[in-house]
Every structure is written in C-alpha cells, then in structure tokens.
C-alpha cells in the first residue's frame, strides 16, 4: 500500500466524518477538507501519527461568504497533504497551530494582515507584512479589496 493510501485509510478509520472528503489527487498529493470544529483533531493526527512534521505554509483564500485556509503538510515520504478548512467571513476566528509548529507564527500573522483572520492563541508580536500605520479593516488579499485612492488616502491619514 502506498503512503497516500495509508494516510487515507488511517484518517477514515479514526474520523468517520471524513468519508468522501479525503482525496488522492496524484502521487504525492492529497487534499482533505474538514469543518472548523473537527480541524484540530485531524491536524494533530496528521502531524503526530502520520508524521507529517513539516508545515510548508498556510494559504488563505477568499471564498465570498467564507475564508478558506489550506495547511500544507508534508513529511519525509514526500507526500503533501493540503488540509483545508473554512470559516464564516463575519467571524473569521481560527486557532493557532504554533504549539505544533512555532515557525507557523509568521504564516498566521500573514493571514491576519492580508485576509483579516483572527488567530486565537497567537503570542503578542510584530505584525507581518503590512506597515504599522496600515488602516484598520483593510485586508488587501480579500477579493473586494482594491488599492483605491480612498484606501491610499486612509493610509496617509493614519501615518
């Protein structure tokens, strides 16, 4: 059995609600979609039990009413698991994964700055990557955001 199949079987055995949402896209690429409530146990299982010990990055997505987050996990086997979860844009609260990956701090700060996600449990620190005087409530990677003259004016006002 290939590593991809081992991961798939392990997940389905442990979390029956994942039925139908674990896909082997091609050799070395898997995608999993999971609701926010079940995200942490699945994430922990992949990291600890399946030894996907390297978090490449976290991708943020603007999906109209929702914000999507893809955690790109991989390990020594080279299999890359794209674990996706999403949250309502109105209350975009997710939990930090820095207890598993201290290096994830900068990826989570990026989600906060560029998508307006709120990451609970993230230690105090410098923002990344926007400037300290960036206007409140402006999230550049949201689809409806445009670098409008108003936004630029807003930046000046806050400077």
């Amino acid at each position, binding site marked *: 059995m290939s590593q991809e199949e081992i991961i798939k079987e392990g997940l389905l055995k442990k979390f029956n609600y994942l039925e139908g949402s674990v896909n082997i896209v091609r050799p070395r690429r898997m995608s999993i979609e999971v609701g926010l409530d079940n995200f942490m146990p699945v994430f922990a299982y992949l990291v600890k039990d399946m030894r996907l010990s390297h978090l*490449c990055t976290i*991708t943020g997505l603007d999906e109209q009413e929702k914000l999507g987050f893809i955690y790109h996990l991989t390990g020594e086997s080279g299999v*890359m698991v794209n674990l996706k979860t999403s949250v309502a844009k109105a209350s975009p609260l997710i939990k930090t994964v820095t207890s598993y990956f201290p290096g994830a*701090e900068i990826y989570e700060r990026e989600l906060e700055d560029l998508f307006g996600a709120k990451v609970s449990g993230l*230690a105090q620190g410098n923002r990344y990557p*926007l400037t300290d005087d960036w206007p409140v409530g402006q999230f550049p*990677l949201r689809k409806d*955001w445009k670098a409008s003259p108003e936004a630029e004016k807003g930046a000046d006002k806050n400077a």
Partner: protein
Amino acid sequence: MHNSKDFKIPIGPQHPALKEPEGFSVALKGEKILGVDIRLGYNHRGIEKAAEERTYIQDIYLIERVCGICSHSHSTCFIQAVEEIAGLVIPARARYIRTIIGELERIHSHLLWLGVAGHEIGFDTLLMYSWRDREVVMDILAAITGNRVNYGMNTFGGVRRDINPEQSREILKALDILEERTKYYIEIATEETTIIKRLSGVGVLSREDVLRLDAVGPTARASGVKRDVRVDDSYAAYGELTFDVITDEACDVYGRTVVRVKELMESYKIIRQALKNLPDGPIAIKAPRKVPAGEALSRYEAPRGEDVHYVQANGTEKPQRVKIRAPTLANVQAVKHMLRDRFLADMPIVIAAIDPCFSCTDRMIALKEQDCAKGKIISWPALHAYSLEWHKKQGIDFTELNKKLAARGQK
C-alpha cells in the same frame, strides 16, 4: 517580545550590516544577545494580489521578479503548478533545460553567498575570488538566456530557448573552470584555520531545532536533516539524474559553508549528466490561454531551500489565487534561535548564513559619449578593453605583472 528593562538596540530596517530592509530589535546584556525581535515586510510588494489581476502569461514574468537571484526558481515553481492544473505534460527536452538553468542559477547563487560570507567575516579576498569566478557562470547564463538574472526561459508547456551543441560545449568548458575553483574553495573551507575558527560554533541550530522550526535548504542540511525537494518531491529532470544530497553535522555557520561549497560540485555533476542525456525533440508544446478550474501546489528546491507556490484557477485566463512562500520566510524563524546567547558581533554572519535574498540586477551598460545626447551600447570585450585603458591612464598598469605571472605559471 522583550522585557521592558532590557537594553535594546535597533538594527535596521536600513543598516550597513544588512543587505535588505529588515528590522531587528536586539536585547543585550553587555555584548551578549538576550533575545531578538524581528520585523519583516519592508519589501512586501503585493505580488500575490497583482498576480490575480494579470493573465497567466504576464504572471510568469511578474513572478520571475519575486527574487533577484532565484528568478528561475520562482517562475518554474509557479509554472509547474499551472501546468499541473491544465494537465500539460511538457517535452522531456524542456524538463532538462529547466534543470540545467536551475542548477546554473544555484551555482551563481552559492558563489555569490560565499563572497558575502567572506565579506561578513572580514575575509574580503574570498569575496573578490568567488565573485570573479561567479562571472564565469553569469556569462554562461547570459549566453544561453540573454540575461544575467530574470532569464525568461520558462513558458507554459516548456521553455522559450533551446541549448544548441555549441552552447553545450561552452557550458562544459565553463564547468571545468568552475570545478577547479570549487575544489580550491572546498580546500579553503575545510583547511583554512581562520574560516574554521571564525565560523565554528557560531549560529548553532540543532537537528531538533531544524525540525521544530521548519528550516529549509542548506540551513537544514547543515544540521544533518536530509531535506531536499529535488529528491523528496522530484520535479523537472531530477528523477532521472543521479546526485548526492549534501549534509553536514556541524549545525553551525561553518556547516552551512561546507554544505554550500560541496553542493556546487553536485550541481556540476547534474548539469554534465543533463547535457549528456539531453533528449531530442521540441522544447515546448502549445498551451491554452485559459486554464481550467482547479488547484495545485508546487515545490522547488531553490538555492536557499524549499520554495512553495499554490495556484488556484477559476477557468479564466487569470488565476483566482497565487500563494508564494519563499525559503527565507521559513528560515528567518530559525535566526532568532541562532542568535540567542551569542555575541552581537556574530549577528551579520549568522543572518548572512541563511542566505537571505537580495537583488542582483541586470548589467546592461549604457555609456554616454561626449557631445552625444544618446547613450551607446558597449559590448563586454569592448568594456573590458575600455576599463584597462582607463586604469592605465590613472597610472595603474598590470601588463608587465601579468606577463610575469603568466611566465611563472608556465614554469
């Protein structure tokens, strides 16, 4: 975050010890670093947003400019993701050419780093030597692609320029020179007391810390972690070529130096094999302007480590989302750890040792002639001759010395 009672000094965002804008707030006790607070983002140019507003073809050229050194790395990483979504299988010859350019880029990047590292520890002779030798690979890149960086080699479905037999011979000739020089650098790195003493035990990052902090590239490999996308998640022609993943157990700046110089030898090995086995056939296939809806994640072993691009397509000719994670972002986390409890004087070399990326630009030169408003384009040999002549006029003439040296070399 620091304790408010600590003595703090700011280094950056503009500082002579840094090659790029980045802000460090360093808490000190005497000369010892208690902790470092890093502020990044000064170079954020909104490329991901800009990529969503441009066509895939435009994005190749935009994304190539994410980095002034790893330009081929970023464009290949992006293009691989798009090709996967579109289901494009590129010709074997194109895969090999992408590999050759990728390795030539690694050579130029590692030689550049060696010079910077030499400079940071006050060993400027090493800087002069390695950057002189780097010109050999820069000339080859310019001859094949037409440019020293931002090569514009990639296009959807393959590459834009072929490598002809004559160019192939030129590359092999250049590799012979570079290999000879690299052997000398390996000798310096492993035997020269100044280097060994200055770099050993500096910027320590244990194997466990690499795994915990997710460091990548030579930074990870110098701590004994065999992490290399060319092997772990093989792409282009790497699966068909044999080479070693260089690791070292030193876990410090010295180890990172040894890994990089030894990796140069592997790059020569890869290029020689790729040129020898370069498959015949077309260099590109026709690709559609619109990319069907889908998503893909692509990884690439850039000179500084793992580069990651995620692309989501929506069926139009513009991407829905492009996410880029360059290797330095993964490694900068480790820097904090490496600096703790070290001396302030080690800071420049520790930061330089992860090889943070800075821009190396085009070298097209326009000289203004007297009484001529328009510029003049000058060829490389003519510029060389002009330079010698100019220095002679200033009283600096090495003609006799060069003759003597050449005569001594023949003996």
